[in-house]
């Protein structure tokens, strides 16, 4: 037995959430060919069905591109500080992809580690994530290579699995149950588990490569193509690095947090002008190292959900997947494969 909802009932439920005062966000075409997560005025704007995934991610609802941290005003020699008591909107994200939702438990670790960032945690508490399992994937998708898949429940409050008509509804948290209570009907049909994209690399092998030759020439080759634009990081569900700057004038202003990216020269430049990561090869290596070595060493899982946005949005088609291919076909990568084969043999 399972619970199900028809497409029409789901859309009408979305309209109920909106008219009930909730902010509802989901994949929506902002223009032809550009699908983004957008706040919806009505369920009709929701793009369900034959699309792979939005070009951005849901991280913006937890870690906005730009946010004020506190304000200050000047009065002579004195400064007055005004804290912000963030009351986030009650938001439902409907139609999130499993690779977007799976990023949330990963981000939770960063923003709760040692010091709790309430700007993040309060938004997290106020948001319910209704995910729809994928039935389509493209060459850039690689969720199955990082231990996830087209119907993983990780990070979702509700998982909707497409049936021939409508969806099987799996409420995974109390937040999710509250949203769908009384709205589903019992059903005999269970959704078939989608297979997802074929596995394209092995994180264990990659881990060995990243712990091995730090000076692998592959980074230099990759970096020759990289324009350093930051599209990969900004559209990534798990990239979370940020900058803190001031927006002030003679009477006062605010301290703000903005998205930042490890591909920029200024990201690590010292005041002296010395830069520990002064070229693009070092910065490319940093991005992959952070995702597949540094974060796993600290938190026990990779900082990547295999959504493929990095490659899809890159002006030169460079991303995690293409980098993994380049790494695996580098001298060190070939050695690793041969070693593994000889051990098996």
């Amino acid at each position, binding site marked *: 037995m399972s619970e199900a909802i028809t497409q029409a009932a789901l859309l009408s439920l979305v309209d109920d959430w909106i008219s009930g005062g909730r902010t509802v966000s989901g994949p929506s075409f902002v223009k032809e060919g550009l699908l983004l997560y957008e706040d919806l005025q009505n369920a009709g704007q929701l793009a369900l069905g034959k699309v792979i995934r939005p070009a951005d991610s849901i991280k913006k609802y937890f870690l906005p591109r730009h946010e004020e941290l506190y304000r200050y005003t000047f009065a002579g020699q004195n400064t007055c500080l005004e804290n912000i008591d963030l009351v986030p909107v009650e938001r439902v994200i409907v139609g999130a992809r499993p690779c977007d939702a799976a990023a949330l438990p990963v981000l939770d670790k960063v923003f709760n580690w040692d*010091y709790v960032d309430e700007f993040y945690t309060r938004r997290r508490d106020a948001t319910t994530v209704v995910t729809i399992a994928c039935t389509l994937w493209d060459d850039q998708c690689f969720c199955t290579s990082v231990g996830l898949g087209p119907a993983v429940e990780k990070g979702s409050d509700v998982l909707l699995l497409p049936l021939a008509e409508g969806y099987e509804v799996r409420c995974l948290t109390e937040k999710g149950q509250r949203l769908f209570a009384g709205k589903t009907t019992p059903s005999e049909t269970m959704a078939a588990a989608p297979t997802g994209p074929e596995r394209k690399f092995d994180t264990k092998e990659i881990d060995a490569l990243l712990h091995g030759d730090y000076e692998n020439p592959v980074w230099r080759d990759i970096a020759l193509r990289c324009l350093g634009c930051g599209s990969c990081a900004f559209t990534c569900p798990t990239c979370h690095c940020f900058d803190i700057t001031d927006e002030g004038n003679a009477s*006062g202003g605010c301290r703000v947090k903005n998205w930042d990216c490890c591909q920029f020269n200024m990201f690590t430049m010292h005041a002296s002008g010395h830069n520990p990561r002064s070229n693009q090869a070092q910065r490319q290596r940093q991005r992959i190292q952070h995702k597949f070595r540094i974060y796993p060493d600290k938190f026990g899982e990779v900082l990547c959900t295999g959504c493929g946005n990095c490659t899809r949005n890159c002006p030169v088609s460079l991303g995690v997947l293409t980098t993994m291919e380049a790494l695996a076909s580098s001298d060190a990568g070939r050695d690793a494969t041969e070693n593994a084969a000889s051990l098996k043999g």
Partner: protein
Amino acid sequence: MNNIYMPELMKVIGVKQHTADVKSVKIRFQDPATTDAFSFRVGQFGMFSAFGSGESTFNICSSSNWKDHIEFCFRKTGMVTESLWRIEEGDSIGFRGPYGNSYPMEDWEGRNLIFIGGGIAMPPIRCAIWYALENRAKYGDITIVYGARTAADFVFADELDQWAQAERTRVVRCVDPGGETPDWNYEVGLIPHVIERAAIPAENSIALVVGPPIMIKFTLPVLDKMGLGTKDIYTSLENRMKCGVGKCGRCNCGPVYVCKEGPIFTLEQLHRLPLDY
């Protein structure tokens, strides 16, 4: 809301200009209760705010025994430090911290201490020097080697004279060749050469070396030749930071976050890290 990015307001109680572009600032919490509750360990750093310009990372260069104020020191180089350069007694600035690890002052008890600093790197050593001098009986001989480009570039120069007066404490001052003045009575030469000439006993010693990467690079082989082990050589890294609390993602050297696991590392630890510093 508990806001980890929110600084404490501090009142500037003193500003001192050391060189053409270096100043140190004494600050005190505006709220006396915060002063009473505050403590730190020498070697830790803070995020210092010039409201309207931004926030910068500096070592807390005062001794942790000084309870009524803290000090920091900076060179005028960018937007925040240009703003800090203009502050006067009575102004307000912001402080977050203390963050990071600290010098293992307890582990250093009973050892001879060799402090080696270049240029603006004196402040992160100064806190440890004062701490050691204030607990003089606990430490062996203290040698302070401080080099600057010219005779006019010494930070805390008056304190060098005070330290030279302390018991079992030797101060070696040097300037780069060409940086001396006609009345310069001290060493001329680069720090690694001066250390070799100074014949500092290495037995039972630890060395704290802070300075520009090029100075550290050429000083380490000299310490090695003297016989100091990699576990006994310490430095403080200065990677760029924004949050200071392990979130913003830029200060790492490979797997190590300098703001959390640093900024103090032994040479042995550094040898295991990629050269991202």
